[in-house]
C-alpha cells in the first residue's frame, strides 16, 4: 500500500506539530514536520505530500490578527506552489491558528475556485479571553467536507482567543446554501448551541466551528482533533471507565477516537485516489 504523506507545517511560533504528526500516524499516514522555511527554500517539496496541515499555535505571536502574518509569508513566498497543491486534488487541513491562516490566505471559503480573497474572519472571542474547554460539535451531513464524513456528533477541545467566526450576512447565506459549514458548536445533546456560552465558546455567528471550500478538500476548524488522540484525553474518561466497569466492560483504548477518525477520513480519501 502506498503511503499517504502528510506535511505538518512548523516554525515561527506554531506549536501543535508533534501531536498533529502523531495523530496522522495513528490515522495511518506518514507524517513529517516541515519548517515553513524549508518549504520556502525548496528543501522540502509540496509535491511529495498529499495532505498539508496548517497547525495550531501562535504564528508570529498572532500579533496583528491571528494567522495574518503566516498567511502573508505563505502568500508572498509560496503563493503559486500552494495553489498548485490544491489543484492537484490534495487535501489541506487548518486547525485553530491554521484555520485562521487559511481564511487570511483566502483558501477558505474559496467561493467558485477563488482561493485568494478574504471574505470570512476569525476574530476575538466574545468572552474577551483565551479559553480552553471541551465543546460538542455537530457536523453537517450534506457538507462535501472530506474530514467530517460520518462523524455526526462528538467532542473536541478548543483553545483559542480569536475563534469567533464572522462574515457578512450574504457570505454566511452563501456558505450555508453551498453546504460549506462543516461543523457547528452544539449543546451536549446535539441541539444547536445558539450562541450560548460556553457551548459556543467564542460567539461565532451561527455557531460556526469549521468550514470547507466548495470541493470539500480544504477544511478549517477551531477545535483540535489532534488533541483527542487517546481516550484519556477526554475530560470524562475516568467516569466513563468506572461506569463501564460496573457493566463488566473495559475501557477500549484500541479504537480510534473521533479526533483520529476525522484525520482518517482525510487519509482514506487520499488512499482511494492513489
Amino acid at each position: 500500500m502506498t503511503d499517504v504523506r502528510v506535511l505538518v507545517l512548523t516554525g515561527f511560533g506554531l506549536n501543535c506539530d508533534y501531536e498533529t504528526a502523531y495523530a496522522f500516524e495513528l490515522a495511518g499516514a506518514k507524517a513529517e514536520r516541515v519548517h515553513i522555511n524549508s518549504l520556502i527554500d525548496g528543501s522540502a517539496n509540496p509535491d511529495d505530500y498529499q495532505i498539508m496541515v496548517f497547525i495550531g499555535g501562535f504564528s508570529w505571536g498572532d500579533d496583528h490578527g491571528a494567522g495574518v502574518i503566516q498567511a502573508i509569508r505563505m502568500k508572498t513566498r509560496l503563493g503559486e506552489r500552494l495553489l498548485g497543491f490544491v489543484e492537484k486534488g490534495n487535501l489541506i487541513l487548518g486547525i485553530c491558528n491554521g484555520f485562521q491562516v487559511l481564511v487570511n490566505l483566502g483558501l477558505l471559503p474559496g467561493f467558485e475556485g477563488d482561493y485568494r480573497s478574504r471574505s470570512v474572519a476569525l476574530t476575538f472571542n466574545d468572552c474577551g479571553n483565551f479559553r480552553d474547554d471541551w465543546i460538542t460539535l455537530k457536523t453537517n451531513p450534506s457538507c462535501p467536507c472530506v474530514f467530517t464524513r460520518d462523524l455526526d456528533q462528538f467532542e473536541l477541545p478548543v483553545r483559542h482567543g480569536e475563534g469567533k467566526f464572522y462574515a457578512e450576512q450574504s457570505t454566511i447565506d452563501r456558505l450555508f446554501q453551498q453546504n460549506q459549514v462543516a461543523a457547528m458548536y452544539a449543546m451536549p445533546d446535539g441541539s444547536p448551541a445558539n450562541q450560548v456560552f460556553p457551548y459556543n465558546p467564542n460567539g461565532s455567528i451561527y455557531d460556526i466551528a469549521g468550514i470547507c471550500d466548495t470541493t470539500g478538500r480544504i477544511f478549517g476548524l477551531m477545535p483540535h482533533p489532534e488533541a483527542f488522540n487517546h481516550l484519556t484525553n477526554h475530560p470524562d474518561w475516568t467516569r466513563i471507565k468506572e461506569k463501564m466497569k460496573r457493566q463488566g466492560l473495559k475501557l477500549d483504548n484500541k479504537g480510534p477516537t473521533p479526533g483520529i477518525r476525522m484525520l482518517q477520513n482525510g487519509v482514506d480519501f487520499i488512499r482511494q485516489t492513489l
Partner: protein
Amino acid sequence: MPYRLEVALKPELFDAEGDGVRRKAKDYFGYDLSDVRVIHVVTIDAVLSPDQLETIRNEIFTNPVTQISSFTPLPLAFDWAIWVGYRPGVRDNPGSTAVEAIEDVLGIRFEQDQAVYTSKRYCLRGAAGLGEKDVVKIAAELLANDIIQQWRIYPKETWEPDTGTGIIIPKVVLDHTPTVTTIPISSDQILKKISNERNLALNPHDIPTIRSYFLDKDVRAARSAVGLSDPTDVELEYISQARSDHCNHNTFHGRFLYRDTSSNTEEIIDDLFKTCIEAPTLILKEKKPWVISVLWDNAGVGRFNDNHYYVITGETHNSPSNIEAYGGAITGIVGVYRDPLGTGKGSKLIMGSYGYCVGPRDYNGPLKPRLHPRRLLDGVIEGVRDGGNKSGIPTPFGQVLFHPGYMGKCLVFVTAVGLMPAQVKGEPAEQKKTSAGDLVVMCGGRVGKDGIHGVTASSEVFSESTPAGHVQIGDPYTQKKMHDFLLEARDEGLIRFITDNGGGGLSSSVGESARFSNGCEIHLEKVPLKYQGLDQWEIWVSESQERMTVAVHPKDLDRFLELSRKHAVESTVIGKYTDSGKLHIKYHGKTCAYVDMDLLKSGFPQWKFEAEWRSAENRGLTEPVLAEPSDFNQLFLDVLSRPNICSKEWICRQYDHEVQGTSVIKPLVGAQRDVPSDGIVLRPVLNSHRGIAFSQALLPFYSAIDAYHMTTCTVDEAVRRLVAVGADFEHIGGVDNFCWPSIQYDSKVNPDGKFKAAQLVRSCKALRDICLAYEIPLLSGKDSMYVDGHLYGLYGETHKVSALETLQFSAISVIPDVNKCVTLESKVAGDLIYIMGLTRNELGASEYYDMLGYVGLNVPEVKTHEFVDLYRTLSHAIQQELAASVHGVYRGGLGVHLAYIAMGGNLGMEICLDLVPCEGLDRNDTVLFSESAGRFIVTIDPQNRSLFEETFSAIPHAQIGTVTDSPDFIINGLDGQTIVSIPVQELKNAWKRPFGDLI
C-alpha cells in the same frame, strides 16, 4: 517620515477587548462606562511610498471582513480618549513582528534606526460626570503602568480630528560612547561608597576580599600585562552578580547560630543547603536509581523510561511582578522555560505551573501598594497566560493564595517540566561540558539596557527607590523559535554545553560555563545590540531575555548557524572557551576584564545569621475559647466561598492546559469539569502509556504557628496530591521553592529577624526530615529572600509588610499506566465513602479559625511513619483499580473536601461524622474543619468492599457514608442529628460566587 495607522473593529462588531476594559473599570473603580472601543495604533518609523503604505495597510494591518483603518485618526465617538504606548526601550513584541511582516510584503529591509511601534487608543463613552481625575485613574491604574508605559488623555472637547494623538515615537537614543571605568579601591570605604552610587550592591563583608584580590602583587602584575590596574566596572559588576544572594544563595549557604529559647539549647548549622537539601538528596540518589542528575545543572533530571528523562525546576519572579505584574510574570514563565532547555544538552518543554500569592483581591484598607492586589493578580494571570500559551507549553496546574502579608511583595512561582532523550548521538544527554577551543555562541534575542541589575534588585527589600529599569516583557515568540532550533541542533549532536541567560545575563552564563574549561575569552563588541550606546559592563550583565549561551565545536559551527538561519534565530559567536584559568573580556581588542576563574571560590566570607526560636506557646499562642456553632448550613456555605477555598476556574480556563495532546488528568475534573483536580497527569511520550504526575502545595498559614509544621504539611500535601491521582509512591521527586522575609536581624529595620531566621532553620530541618522519611530527593530548588515591602499608610507613614514564611513544594512522579489514573469526583450512586487516616484536634491556623479571626495553637503535624503505610497501600489499591475516586483532605478540612467530591460527581452524599476515626474529638466543627494531614477520602464500588477493607486492615480507615442519587449533601453530626443538609448545586453556587463572573 513616520506614519501612524489606526486600526479598529468595524462599528457593528462587538469589541471584546474594549468590553473587558469597561468591565474592569466597573470592577476596579465602580465606573459605569457605557462603551469602550479600542483602536490599535501602528506607528511606522521608516520611509515608505504612498503605494507601499496602502499595501501594508490592506495586506497586514487591516482585516477587510472585520476591521477599518486609516492613516488619519479614526473618527470613533468618545467622551474621553486615552492613548497608551510603551516607554523607550521597552520590549514591543507586536512592533517587531510588524517589521517582519512589512519586510516580507514589500520585499524591503528596515535600516538599523527604523522601527515599528505599537500603542493603543481607548475611546471611552458614557459614565455621566466622569471627570479628568477619574479618567486619569483609569489610565494610570487600569490601562497603563508608568514603569513601562506612557499615557495621555484627551477630552472630546479639545480633540483635534486631523492630528489626533500626534505621532509619538518611543525610540531609544543613547548619545553615549561606550566607556570602561576603572574603580579606585584605595579603601573599603571608597569601594563601599562607589558600590552604593553605582548600585553594585556589593556585600560590605565581601569588600575586603575583593580589595585584597585586586591589591595582590601577582594579580596586579598579571593585570598590568593586559593593560589593567585597579578593577574595572565590568569586573566589579561580574563579581557583584556572581556574589548576589540570587545567584550565589548566600543565605542558604550561611552559618546559622540557632538558639531554642524554650529548651535553652544552642546549635550551629553550617550551611543550610548542604545539611538539609544536598545531604539528604545525595543519600536518596544512592537508593533511587531513577535519579539521573541533581544539584549542579539548571534543573534536576529523573528517569521517565529507558529512552527518556524528565527535567524539572522552579523559579520565582516576585520583585519584577510586584511593580509590573504582566511584564514580571510573562518574563518569569518564559524565563523558567529556559532552564530545562538549558539542562544537559537541552530538553523539550512539556508543562509549566504557577503559584500566585497576593493581598486580598478586595482590599480596601489604608495601605497603598504600588499595584492594588486585584490589578496585580489580573496582570500576573495574563502574563503567565501569554507566556505559557504562546510557548505552546501546557499550563495545567497552579495555586492562588490571598493573604495581607503579600501586599509588601507578591509571590509569583513558576515551574517548568521538560523531557530529554536519554542519549544524544550515543552520548548521555544529561551531561555537558565546555572544552578549550569550543566557541561561545549567544542565541536568541538581542541585548539592550533592559534587566540591568535585576539580580541585585531582587536581593533587596522593595522600596520606592528600587530601579524600575529591570522590568522586562518576555517574548515567547522569539523564544519558541529558539527552542525549536536548539532541539534540532541538539538532536544533530551540535551542542556541547548549553545554559540560559537569565539573572546576571552573559556574566552568569559565560562565567559559569567557563568553569568547565577553566577560562574564556569574550569579545563584547560582537554581542548583537538592540541599539548602540551601551557601556561594556551593561552588555556583560544585561538581562535581556530569550537568550541562551551554547558551546559549539568549531567543526560544527557552520551547520549550527545554518539551522539557526532556518529557524529565523540570531546566533553569534562572541568568543571562545579556554583553559587559561582567566575570565578574559575584551572590547575591540582592548581588555576590560581579566580575573581568575577561581576568584569566586576563594576567600569570600560566609554570611552569618542569628536564629532565635521561641515556641508557639512561649509566644503566647493558645487555642481560642470557642463554643460549637449551631448553624452549620450557613457556616458551610461561608467556608466554601472563602477566597482561599472558592473556585478559581477562570484562571485554569485561560491557560492552555492540553496543547501537545498529552493531557490525561486535567486541572478541572468532574461531571461539569469545574472542580480542581488533586494533581495532573500527562502522557508526554505519545506512543507510550507511561505518565508524568505533577502536583504542588502551598500552606504558608501554618508558619504563623511553626514553619517546621508548615513545611512538613506542605510536602505531605503535595505527595498526597500525587498519590491521589495514581502516582507511584516509590518514585517522587521534589522541588523546594522558599520565599522568605528578610532574616538578617537589625534592631531598627528587622527587629524580628532572628525569629524569621529560626523559622527558616526549622523549615529546612523539616524539609530534610520529611524528604528522608518519604524518600523524596530534591531534584531542584530555589530560594527568594527579602519578601518584604514598605507601604504608605493613611498619614504618609510607611509600614513594613512581610510575607508569611512560604514554601511552595512541587512533586513529580511517574505513572506506569495512565489508564489506571483516578479522579476525585464521586462516580456512581450507591458507592461507599471511606476516610483513610486519623482526624485529630488540629485546627491551628486552619481556614476555619482564620474565618473566625483566630490563629490557635494546634497546628497539624505530619506523622510520617504512620502515613507512609497508608500512601504505599493506597498506591497499590489504585493500581488494583479498587477505587472509584480518591481525594486528599487539604485546606478547609474534611467538610470542604467531601463537598469537592460531591460537587465533582454532581451526586448527593450522606455522611455520619460519628464514624470518622478520630483521636479524642468530641465536636462537630473540629471533625469537619480540622486540617490533619495524612488523610484521603476514597469512594468504592460496594462490590469491592471486602477486598478494600482487607487491603487496609492495618491502617486507620472507616466507611463514613455513601454516595446518593439525591440532590442533597447531608452530614449527620456526632450525635446522629443532621447538621448540614444542602443541595449540591447550592454548595457549588456558594463556592463559585466570589469569582464566578470572571472569565
